[in-house]
């Protein structure tokens, strides 16, 4: 048989109808994840047409974007946010969709809880009205973000009209150095590809450096595939993947486990499979990365200087850098550790390693927002929460929080933050806000010193 890529295998297993000259393929969706912001208009569409949700058993919802992250969980930023939350609750009730609501032990950022619950499984197709759905590719699932119209399509038919994307293999040789994380790796990959360089492709991350990553790190990597414009990110599942998923709530039961794993072992690109494009990276050569501009591809190693290129002038002006300025040492106002990119237990452990026995710099605001109720519970059991509180951090409730800044958690105009989130767009974290994207290690180190800091000095 002709050697096939991982994408080929998942795609062909989900074709209700193949692509023709007149029509895109009809692709079946195994898991539809829903949140309050991109779903209300889709449910309205169903009501107007008298349609039901075709497969409520494959549809799962939570609240994450608009909700407060302080202890008063229903203290919404405004009535519109409250209405949006109430609307999702009503839609889930009316259409029979399971909702991981505020106050439950399963609530959290959708891309954190779905893997945690074992909803994300190898070989699946997964969609959500959220561009960071690419996260789930870490498990060898084809997962991508869709708009509200397509949310309606999946609710009504469990299918999408899709053209098959191209494949781009990202080979990463060697191993990441001490203090260098999956976040630094993906920022380096995005820098190499450019913010539109992955458009039309599914990125398959391969090679020794990828195989060495734990599942949380793989999620961080796949999460930001969209920041290179890619449709999705993919990593072939392996024994680490299977062990991570075993006995999670929605994962196959013990009686079916061996059968499932046997099937999942087939989910890798065959030897000799041809990719449309390939790039090579050397993990050894990557330093802790930070963004300096207003697009996620505008990054440098933390020991480097801000570039002087003419086309970056607008971004540098917005961010208030001098061309050629050294990035390390710039004073910062806020550190945000959270988001679907970096709010998992391993991220919090990394931050705690640096924050333990130390305190945030005077006047600096340090916000730590766990990705889910489960992550929060685990961090409290492990004593991480105590370390954070003693370091002067705000230890908040799970949600998207200051990554998208639509729930009231936001920067003041002009403030500069080091954030573990995924987008440094102008105004992303509040009107006039300035964002430096970095790893949890770099964020924690910078919180301690009050200026952008190479975390490796704390890890000697």
């Amino acid at each position, binding site marked *: 048989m002709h050697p096939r890529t991982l994408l080929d295998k998942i795609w062909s297993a989900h074709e209700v109808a193949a692509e023709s000259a007149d029509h895109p393929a009809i692709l079946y969706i195994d898991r539809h994840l829903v949140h309050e912001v991109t779903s209300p208009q889709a449910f309205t569409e169903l009501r107007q047409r008298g349609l039901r949700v075709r497969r409520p058993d494959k549809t799962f919802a939570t609240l994450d974007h608009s909700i407060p992250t302080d202890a008063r969980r229903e203290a919404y930023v*405004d009535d519109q946010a409250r209405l949006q939350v109430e609307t999702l609750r009503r839609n889930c009730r009316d259409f029979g969709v399971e909702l991981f609501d505020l106050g439950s032990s399963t609530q959290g950022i959708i891309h954190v809880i779905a893997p945690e619950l074992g909803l994300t499984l190898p070989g699946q197709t997964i969609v959500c009205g959220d*561009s960071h759905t690419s996260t789930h590719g870490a498990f060898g699932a084809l997962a991508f973000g*869709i708009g509200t*119209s397509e949310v309606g399509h999946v609710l009504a038919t469990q299918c999408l*009209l899709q053209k098959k994307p191209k494949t781009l293999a990202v080979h990463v040789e060697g191993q990441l150095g001490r203090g260098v994380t999956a976040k630094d790796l993906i920022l380096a990959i995005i820098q190499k590809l450019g913010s539109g360089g992955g458009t039309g492709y599914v990125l398959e991350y391969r090679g020794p450096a990828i195989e060495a990553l734990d599942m949380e790190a793989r999620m961080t990597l796949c999460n930001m595939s969209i920041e290179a414009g890619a449709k999705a990110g993919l990593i072939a599942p392996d024994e680490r993947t299977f062990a991570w998923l075993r006995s999670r709530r929605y994962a196959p039961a013990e009686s079916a486990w061996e059968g499932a794993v046997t099937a999942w072992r087939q989910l890798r690109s065959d030897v000799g499979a041809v990719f449309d494009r390939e790039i090579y990276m050397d993990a050894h050569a990557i330093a802790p990365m930070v963004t300096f501009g207003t697009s996620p591809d505008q990054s440098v190693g933390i020991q480097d200087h801000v570039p002087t290129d003419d086309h970056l002038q607008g971004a540098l002006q917005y961010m208030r850098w001098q061309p050629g300025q050294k990035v390390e040492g710039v004073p910062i106002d806020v550190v945000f550790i959270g988001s679907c990119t970096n709010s998992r237990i391993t991220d919090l452990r990394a931050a705690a390693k640096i924050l333990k026995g130390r305190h945030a710099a005077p006047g600096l605001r340090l916000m730590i927002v766990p990705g889910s109720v489960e992550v929060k519970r685990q961090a409290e059991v492990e004593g991480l929460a105590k370390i954070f509180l003693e370091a002067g951090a705000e230890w908040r409730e799970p949600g998207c929080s200051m990554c998208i800044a639509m729930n009231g958690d936001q920067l003041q105009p002009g403030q500069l933050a080091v954030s573990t989130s995924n*987008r440094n767009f102008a105004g992303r974290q509040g009107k006039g806000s300035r964002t430096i994207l970095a790893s949890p290690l770099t964020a924690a180190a910078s919180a301690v010193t009050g200026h952008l800091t190479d975390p490796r000095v704390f890890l000697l």
Partner: protein
Amino acid sequence: MQAFHKLCSAFITLPMENIDTDQIIPARFLKQTHREGLGEALFYDWRYEANGQPKPDQVLNQKAGQDYEILVAGRNFGCGSSREHAVWALQGYGFRVIISPSIGDIFKSNALKNGLLPIEVDAPFYERIRAQEVGALFIDLEKQEVKLASGEIQTFSIDSFARLCLLKGVDQLGYLVGMDEAIGSFERRAL
């Protein structure tokens, strides 16, 4: 969905590259539960002062309500989040066509679902559009052509099914709902 055949319109140019959906519609405007009324919030942080007063010298404010139905923008327009609100806001302002050397995947898909026509042209043609200081552009979806005032034409590619839906003014949900039997048969066979 409104059908799209031909359009002749003046255009507004935003030459910046990588205009992301957070610029098109900031996240704080995503809390509404309906589609309508987002035109005022389009590019909000570019168009309004901190006190909410419109900036008089901002091009989108100067030309609001004047039948500019084409937006010409720099490379990688609509990158970033999946928010369909970006499309609704552009339509709310009055745009029916977006032209750029490249357009983000999810944005493009969202635009096509709503009757907003996304057109990718090559970089030299984009530069010639920008150089054309006054006048209109002519769009013909049937022929898949963009024509400059000078008469120069570039053809563009578009998914054939999406094109048909736009020409007929029908949305894609109806088609998918009509595939119920094939979907049911897949579910019995594969699940």
